[in-house]
């Protein structure tokens, strides 16, 4: 057994993993990034839309600040987010953008003067301030009060990931393993019309979309409608952590980015808030990881390592010697179909119940996978055989959690329970697996404490409000009014400290400057 020692091991070389690694390396800790694929090929590269941060430099972002961003984030989450985390996040996001600018991201900039834009399907002319010329600009990404999504033409994620990985290469090491792609299902579609945007805009800012249309569909989006269909493109939820990013149940395990339930997205994520989460969580959690390295000398028992190594080896050997059994590709395809048909955008009890039953059967069948290609190295079927059972278990967590949640909140829309029920469901779903052989995950709930909220649950400002109120909502609102009255001399930043005194690492505590407004 050969053991490789390092102060911090980062699994995943997307934006979040790399940013955590950079933080740990900058604090002097040995760090290894382990990734299935070269870091620059991570999915983060695909985030073309952009990253939210309240810089407020473009004219449609005037008046933006951390508080407005906070409000949008909490509403977007349908009050399911952790408000401490959302606070840390919105306060740090402007610094994250500016740091990435210093590291090389060629963010699109404000150009003083008139320009044509499309707002609500209409062409209008807006005038950018000349004083803001050359500062980082932003665009609309839906669901926000201000234009807050910073971007790089049509390649935001690409430029962020390249700058981040280059910084990581400058600082240290990165190890990779080979990875696999994900197949795409076909099916019914809708039409997307972007012809109104015009050739120039499409060719510059939506070139990647244009390329996809031309190469994949053989159509010209400047003139023709684009066929589109819904697909899963983000996972809300993840490894549950506390506000420092550390697991509440396994000391020394931290999680950040899309894999984490740090929980700033709650039940729906705002467009542009997820790449923002990766870098901001990377900055903050990275500091906490380094703190952890400082406080805890590396102490691992080789017996523990040997135990787990043996366990994994046995799993692989079992797969390699089994003569007959299930085909992992087929199991995956069936899982995908169940999720698509029964756990999609609009959900209902009977469908979810069936989905849970069928997935449980798949879970059982997945214990009996056999390979056609029985070699232990460089074997895509073996990779699938290891991953598919875990994917099925994750699908079970989603479907079972959705079945039990008898309300509609954020992206969870139940046709049979259309109301948002704060009284009974203002709580986070936690799933755990007792052991590898369980048929279903155990489900428990973590209540959200309304009395600690900076912004108690109210109207989310989109769709029809159909809410069963939480008994504490009004109480907390009154309390907040009272605090505001007794501290009428406090500015917004002091007031925020009173309402939600979130601990932010010293490094990132400073107030953010904005053009025309200073540090207010």
């Amino acid at each position, binding site marked *: 057994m050969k053991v490789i020692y390092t102060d911090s091991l980062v699994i995943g070389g997307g934006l979040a993993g790399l940013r955590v690694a950079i933080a740990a390396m900058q604090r002097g800790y040995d760090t290894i990034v382990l990734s299935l*694929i*070269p870091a*620059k*090929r*991570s*999915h983060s*590269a*695909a985030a073309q839309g952009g990253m939210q941060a309240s810089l407020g430099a473009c004219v449609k972002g005037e008046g933006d600040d951390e508080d407005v961003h906070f409000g949008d984030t909490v509403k977007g989450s349908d009050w399911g987010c952790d408000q401490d985390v959302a606070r840390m996040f919105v306060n740090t996001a402007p*610094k*994250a953008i*500016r*740091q990435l*600018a*210093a*590291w*090389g991201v*060629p*963010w*699109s*900039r*404000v150009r003083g003067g008139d320009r044509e834009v499309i707002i609500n399907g209409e062409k209008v002319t807006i005038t950018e301030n000349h004083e803001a010329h*050359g*500062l980082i600009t932003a665009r609309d990404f839906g669901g926000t009060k201000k234009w807050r999504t910073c971007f*790089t*033409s049509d*390649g935001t994620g*690409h*430029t962020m990931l390249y*700058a981040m990985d*280059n*910084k990581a*290469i400058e600082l240290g090491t990165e190890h*990779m393993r*080979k990875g*696999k*792609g*994900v*197949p*795409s299902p*076909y099916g019914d579609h809708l039409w997307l019309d972007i012809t109104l945007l015009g050739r120039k805009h499409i060719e*510059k800012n939506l070139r*990647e979309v244009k*390329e*996809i249309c031309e*190469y*994949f*569909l053989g159509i010209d989006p400047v003139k023709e409608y684009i066929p589109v269909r819904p697909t899963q493109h983000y996972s809300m939820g993840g490894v549950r952590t506390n506000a420092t990013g550390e697991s509440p149940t396994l000391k020394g395990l931290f999680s950040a980015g899309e894999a984490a339930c740090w929980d700033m997205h709650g039940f729906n994520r705002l467009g542009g808030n997820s790449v923002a989460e990766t870098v901001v969580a990377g900055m903050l959690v990275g500091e906490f990881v380094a703190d952890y390295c400082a406080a805890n000398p590396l102490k691992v028992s080789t017996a523990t390592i040997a135990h787990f190594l043996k366990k994994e080896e046995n799993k692989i050997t079992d797969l390699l010697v089994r003569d007959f059994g299930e085909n992992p*590709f087929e199991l995956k*395809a069936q899982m995908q179909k169940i999720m698509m048909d029964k756990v999609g955008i609009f959900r209902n009890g009977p469908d979810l119940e069936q989905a849970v039953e069928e997935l449980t059967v798949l879970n059982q069948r997945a214990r009996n996978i056999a390979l*056609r290609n029985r*070699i232990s190295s*460089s*074997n*895509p*079927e073996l990779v699938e055989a290891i991953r598919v059972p875990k994917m099925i278990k994750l699908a079970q967590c989603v479907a079972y959690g959705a079945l039990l949640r008898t309300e509609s909140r954020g992206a969870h829309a139940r046709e049979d329970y259309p109301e948002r029920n704060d009284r009974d469901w203002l709580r986070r779903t936690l799933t755990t697996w007792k052991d590898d052989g369980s048929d279903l995950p155990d489900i428990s709930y973590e209540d959200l404490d309304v009395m600690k909220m900076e912004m108690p649950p109210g109207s989310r400002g989109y769709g029809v409000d159909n809410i069963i109120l939480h008994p504490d909502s009004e109480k907390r609102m009154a309390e907040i009014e009272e605090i505001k009255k007794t501290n009428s001399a406090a500015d917004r930043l002091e007031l925020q400290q009173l309402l939600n005194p979130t601990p932010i690492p010293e490094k990132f505590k*400073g*107030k953010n*400057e904005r*053009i025309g407004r200073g*540090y207010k």
Partner: protein
Amino acid sequence: MSDQARVLKFQIFRYNPLKKGDKPRMVTYEVTEAPGMTIFIALNEIRETQDPSLQFDFVCRAGICGSCAMVINGQPDLACRTLTANFKDGEIKLLPLPGFELIGDLSVNTGKFMRAMSERIESWIHDQHADDVNYDKLEERMDPDVAEEIYELERCVECGACVSACATKRMRPDFLSAVGFMHLARFALDPRDKRTDEEFYEIMGNDDGVFGCMTLLGCEDYCPKDLPHQTQIAYLRRKMALIK
């Protein structure tokens, strides 16, 4: 289009260097064409239904991540955005990108090459004051046109097509190649990178650098992102020629 679906014939290079006794060979697979089928979709179908050992790389399947370059009927290109309908006779021959370490079948280690390239050209912003920047303050301004120009050169996805299409690289194993030049042009243009021309000369002012290029421009012909290799290589050459 006829309603009768075509049967595509794929000839695929197979070789697993980790498997004892395995020998390089071409294997033929037949796949029934579906509407909108890409080479990515076809390869997956082959792997799932015919030969689970087939190795190839994809991540984004949308022409964004640069994982899937391979030689398709003699031309390097991104397999995920190549439609099978483009091939009139339905015969498609797939080879791994030459010039890179072979992992197996169609999978090559572009990651290792690109990482070494990044270290060689130090593909990051060089500014000794970068770590003293106060991020609470307004960011340094940049002309919007300059930002766009930098982005135009930064669109490279490190797919390796240009490297495999380069005749110079075939003769000079350590030739930096177009992907390296494109990154260098990007950093040379960036006002945030404080490297001097002399420092850039140290990196590329030799025959394994920009002076070695024979200007056959396979890079320009095959770059799936249509990056302006010819202009940028000429620009770097002029710039470097002025140094010594």
